[in-house]
C-alpha cells in the first residue's frame, strides 16, 4: 500500500510503526512548506475503477488562498490561542469543582480553528463534544459553553445564532443531521455547506457510515472532518479500524478522501477549504481525516496511564501545533516573541474573566426541566408534571 503522505511539518503517527511517514521534503509537492498531499489510491488495487466521482485520487493542492495570506495565518493563530486558553481554563474549572467532567481537546486546536476559518459565515458546523469550544469561535460566550459542563441548562444555545448545532453526545449521530441540513438548505435555494466533526471512535458507528453513504447518494454539500487522535478513551486505532487511514473509507462511498497532518493548521485549512469549495460548487461530500494524537486524557475523569505509555504522549506534546505554528510564523516574519506572549496573556485573561462570569450565573430553577420540551404542551401537562416541579424546587 502506497500512502504517499508528505508533509514538511512533523507529523509522524506511531501506530503500526509507520502509518504517516515524515518526509522532510516531499517530491515537488509542498509549495509553501506546509502541505500535505495525501491521498492516493489507498489499497484499492488496480482492479478498482479509476474514478467514480473522482474517488480516491484527488490531489489536494497546496492550500487555498486563505492559507497563503499573512492576515489569515495570524487570524488562524489567534483562534488557536483562544481555543488553548479556553481548554486550559476549563480544565482548571473542573479541577476546582466549578464545572463537571470536561472533555479536553488540548492539541486539537489546529484542526478546529482551521475548519472554522475554512467555512463561510453562513455554513453550519456540526459538533461532537470535543469541539465544545467551536461555538465560542463564532461568538458564544465561554461561560455559556461552560455552563453546559456544570450541568446548567443555560449552556443550551440557539444553533441558528452561531451556525453551530449543539455538541452531540452520542457518537456520530450528528453526521446525518449535517446531511439533512445541507440537503434542506440546497432545496431552499441556498449554497451553504455543512461541516461535521467526528473522531476515530465515532468512525466505527453505524451513523457515520449511513451519513456518508446518504450524503454521497444525495450529493449533499457536506464536509466530513475526522479528527483521528488515535484513541477512543482506551481503545487504540488498531482496535477501531483495520485500515491505516480512515480517509480510505471515502472510496467506499464514492467521495474524495484525504489525510492531513492535524497538527499543521495550514494543511488542515487547505484540505478543508478545498472540500468546502467542492461541496459548494455541486461536487458533493468529502472526507478529510486530520491525523493527530490525543495528548491529553479522554476527559478529566480519565487516567490514560492505565492503558498507554504516557511517555508517548509526552513526545507528542513536544510537537503540539501552537508552538510549531508560532515558530513557523516567526520564521516567516509575521510574529515577534513579544506578540506571542501578549496574545497568550490576553486570551488567558479573557477566559479567566469568563470563569468569573460563570460563577456569577444564578443557579437554574426547576421550571427549566420542563420548559421547552414541546411547543404545544398538552392540556393535561400540569397534572403529570406538577409534582416533579414541586420536588425540584425544594
Amino acid at each position, binding site marked *: 500500500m502506497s500512502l504517499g503522505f508528505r508533509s514538511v511539518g512533523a507529523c509522524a503517527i506511531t501506530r503500526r510503526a509507520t502509518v504517516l511517514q515524515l518526509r522532510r521534503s516531499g517530491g515537488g509537492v509542498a509549495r509553501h512548506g506546509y502541505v500535505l498531499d495525501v491521498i492516493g489510491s489507498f489499497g484499492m488495487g488496480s482492479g478498482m475503477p479509476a474514478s467514480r466521482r473522482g474517488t480516491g485520487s484527488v490531489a489536494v493542492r497546496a492550500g487555498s488562498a486563505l492559507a497563503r495570506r499573512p492576515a489569515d495565518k495570524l487570524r488562524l493563530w489567534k483562534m488557536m490561542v483562544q481555543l488553548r486558553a479556553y481548554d486550559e481554563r476549563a480544565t482548571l474549572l473542573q479541577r476546582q469543582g466549578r464545572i463537571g467532567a470536561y472533555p479536553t481537546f488540548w492539541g486539537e486546536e489546529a484542526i478546529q480553528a482551521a475548519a472554522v476559518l475554512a467555512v463561510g459565515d453562513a455554513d453550519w458546523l456540526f459538533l461532537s463534544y470535543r469541539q465544545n469550544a467551536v461555538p465560542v469561535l463564532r461568538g458564544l460566550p465561554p461561560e455559556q459553553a461552560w455552563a453546559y459542563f456544570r450541568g446548567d441548562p443555560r449552556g443550551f*444555545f440557539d444553533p441558528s445564532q452561531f451556525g453551530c448545532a449543539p455538541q452531540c453526545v452520542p457518537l456520530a449521530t450528528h453526521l446525518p443531521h449535517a*446531511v439533512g441540513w*445541507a440537503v434542506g438548505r440546497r432545496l431552499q435555494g441556498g449554497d451553504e455547506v455543512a461541516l461535521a466533526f467526528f473522531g476515530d471512535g465515532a468512525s466505527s458507528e453505524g451513523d457515520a457510515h449511513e451519513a456518508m453513504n446518504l450524503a454521497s447518494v444525495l450529493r449533499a454539500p457536506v464536509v466530513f472532518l475526522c479528527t483521528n487522535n488515535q484513541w477512543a478513551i482506551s481503545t487504540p486505532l488498531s482496535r477501531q479500524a483495520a485500515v491505516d487511514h480512515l480517509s480510505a473509507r471515502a472510496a467506499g462511498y464514492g467521495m474524495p478522501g484525504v489525510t492531513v497532518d492535524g497538527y499543521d493548521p495550514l494543511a488542515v485549512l487547505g484540505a478543508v477549504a478545498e472540500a468546502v469549495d467542492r461541496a459548494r460548487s455541486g461536487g458533493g461530500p468529502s472526507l478529510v481525516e486530520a491525523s493527530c494524537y490525543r495528548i491529553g486524557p479522554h476527559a478529566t475523569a480519565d487516567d490514560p496511564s492505565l492503558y498507554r505509555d504516557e511517555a508517548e504522549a509526552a513526545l507528542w506534546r513536544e510537537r503540539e501545533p501552537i508552538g510549531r505554528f508560532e515558530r513557523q510564523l516567526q520564521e516567516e516574519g509575521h510574529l515577534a516573541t513579544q506578540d506571542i506572549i501578549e496574545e497568550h496573556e490576553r486570551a488567558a485573561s479573557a477566559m479567566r474573566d469568563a470563569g468569573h462570569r460563570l460563577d456569577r450565573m444564578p443557579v437554574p430553577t426547576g421550571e427549566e426541566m420542563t420548559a421547552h420540551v414541546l411547543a404545544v404542551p398538552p392540556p393535561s401537562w400540569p397534572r403529570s408534571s406538577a409534582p416533579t416541579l414541586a420536588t425540584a424546587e425544594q
Partner: protein
Amino acid sequence: MTTPPAAPGNAEPVTLVQAVDAALEAELAADPRVVLLGEDIGRMGGVFRATAGLQARFGESRVVDVPACEAGFVGAAVGMCLAGLRPVVELQFDSFSYPAFEQIVCHLARYRWRTAGATEMPAVLRIPYGGGTHAPELHSDSPEALFCHIPGLVVVTPSSPADAYSMLRWAIRHPDPVIFMEPKRLYRSTRAALPADPDPEGLLRARVVRPGTDVTIVSYGPSVPTCREVAEMLAARGTSAEILDLRALWPLDQEAILASVRRTRRCVVVHEAARSCGVGAEVAALIAEHAMFSLDGPVVRVAGLDAPFPMFMLEDLYLPDPGRIVDAVEEALR
C-alpha cells in the same frame, strides 16, 4: 398502482391508505417546506402505495427516495428541521423504526428542549404498524408505547380514513415531532369520504365512536373496528358499550377518558401491543389515580401477549378478537 383521490372534500369514498396519500399531497401542495423521505416512496409510491403519484407531481427533491438506512434518514430529517423544512418520513414497517430509535430518542425528541426552545422539530414519522396481514417476521409489531415513553414526542394513530386524512394534515402542520402510527390492517378495509374541512383543534382529542352507558371500551388504531363489532354484539344482549377511540396516545385525552369512565363506571382497554407497560397500563393508572371511586369494578385489559409477535399462522390467537373482548367486558361488569 392506486390513484390518489383528487381533492379534499371529494365525495368519492377512499381507503385509509388513499387518505394518507391525499393528506400528503394536500400538504406538499400547500407548503413548499414539506418534504417526504423514505425507502421506495418515489417512483414506486411506497410498499403500501401511501405516496402513490407524489414524486411524479412534486419531483425527486421533495419526494426523496433514500438508501436503506433508517438512522441515517431519520437523522437527516432532524437536520432538515434545523434547515427550516417540515420532513415527513415513512418508516416502511413498524420494526424498521428500531434502527432509527437512537435518532428519535436522543435528537428528534430532545432538540427543542436542548436548544432552550430555539429549535422546532416539526417532523412526522409515519409508521405502518400492527398485525393481521399475514406479514413476514418483524413486520407486525406495535411499538407505540415505546414512543409514548419518550418525552418530547406526540404519538397519534387514526382508525378511519377520515381521521387518517385530518390527523396527518394536522400532524404535518404541528410544530412538535409526531409519531404517526398507521394501522396497516385497516389500510384497505373500509372506504369513507374525506372531510372537506379538517378540524385542527379536536385531533388530540379522543373520539366517542359509539356512545354507551354500561361500560367504556377504550381502544385505538387497528382494534377500534373490532371493538365496534363487539359493541353491536353486546347491544344485542342488552349491554350498552361506549367505544372511545383515543387517537392520541401521547398526550392522552385524560378528560375524555375520565368523563366516560365516571359515567359508565366500568372500563375495558383494548390494544394489540404487548400487555405489560402498554398504553392500557397508562389508561388504567390514570383511572386509578383520578376516578378510583367512580368505578364499580377493576379496569380490564385485553392486549397482545408478553411475547414476540407470533409467526402469522398463530396471529389470530394473539390479536384481541371479539370473543376475548366480550369476556373482558363480562369480567368488568361482574
